């Protein structure tokens, strides 16, 4: 593993570069195929509304995959991720229009741990609301 960020160069409170990810209906169809999760709440508006959702929603695992990119783009080596966990608190609602939805992700170093690892706390929001809770990664730095 060869992370490009040095452990000695970060401290508690160090902010990772924030990123914004867009997701539209085509993104969800593609993710369904790649992940094998064909639950119709992620592509069928009629079905989603029948089960009480406002509209089609993104796969929680899609949002989880996007959020960790703030960490893996920072370290360079995705293999440096030692732990990663999230709570799915609110769905990312994806309207059927030209814009889709956006997911904004920021992260900061919350703790310096043993063995050159740090804990990064991530914040993910869509339409102004948090969509992930307890979103934390432990990553090994150089």
């Amino acid at each position: 593993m060869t992370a490009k960020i040095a452990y000695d160069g970060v401290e508690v409170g160090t902010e990772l570069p924030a990123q914004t990810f867009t997701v539209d209906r085509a993104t969800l169809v593609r993710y369904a195929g790649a992940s094998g999760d064909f639950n119709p709440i992620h592509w069928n508006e009629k079905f989603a509304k029948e089960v009480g959702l406002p509209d089609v929603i993104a796969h929680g695992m899609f949002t989880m995959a996007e959020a960790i990119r703030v960490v893996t783009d920072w370290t360079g080596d995705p293999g440096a991720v030692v732990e990663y966990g999230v709570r799915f608190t609110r769905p990312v609602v994806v309207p059927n229009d030209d814009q889709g939805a956006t997911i904004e992700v920021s992260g900061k170093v919350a703790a310096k741990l043993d063995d050159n690892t740090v804990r990064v706390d991530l914040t993910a929001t869509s339409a102004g609301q948090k969509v992930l809770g307890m979103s934390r990664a432990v990553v090994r730095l150089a």
Partner: protein
Amino acid sequence: MALDQSFVGRSYPPTEPYEVGREKIREFAEAVGDPNPAYTDPEAAKALGHPDVIAPPTFVFAITFKAAGQVVQDPQLGLDYSRVVHGDQKFAYVRPVRAGDRLTVTSTIEAVKSMAGNDILDIRGEVHDEAGEHVVTAWTKLVARAAEEA
């Protein structure tokens, strides 16, 4: 209907090996829009110290969740899957999943709870490679929402 507490600790037999392919990793990385070359270029992955391209951190969920199907669909447990939502997800990695891995998953029920009429199920999936080495552990919390009053 509350789930049976006696299922806590129950383990299911390991799955048949899932062979991780380079092109499947590429497809997944493209689907999440991630251009990191460690996912698609073996030379870039080697420069980082990996023997072949590695998979994005959440890739393995497709494998562990399929394995968790043994639990979710266990007729003796009786979970109402049509009401299930994904509550929490966590991974702890010994090393990244990489192309060429042949992975088996052993699923265990860690906890069964009932809260406000919701059934909550915690499943742990231990992922091992062909040599029997531990690669990653995945914890999945599923919540079956209470059925509405008729």
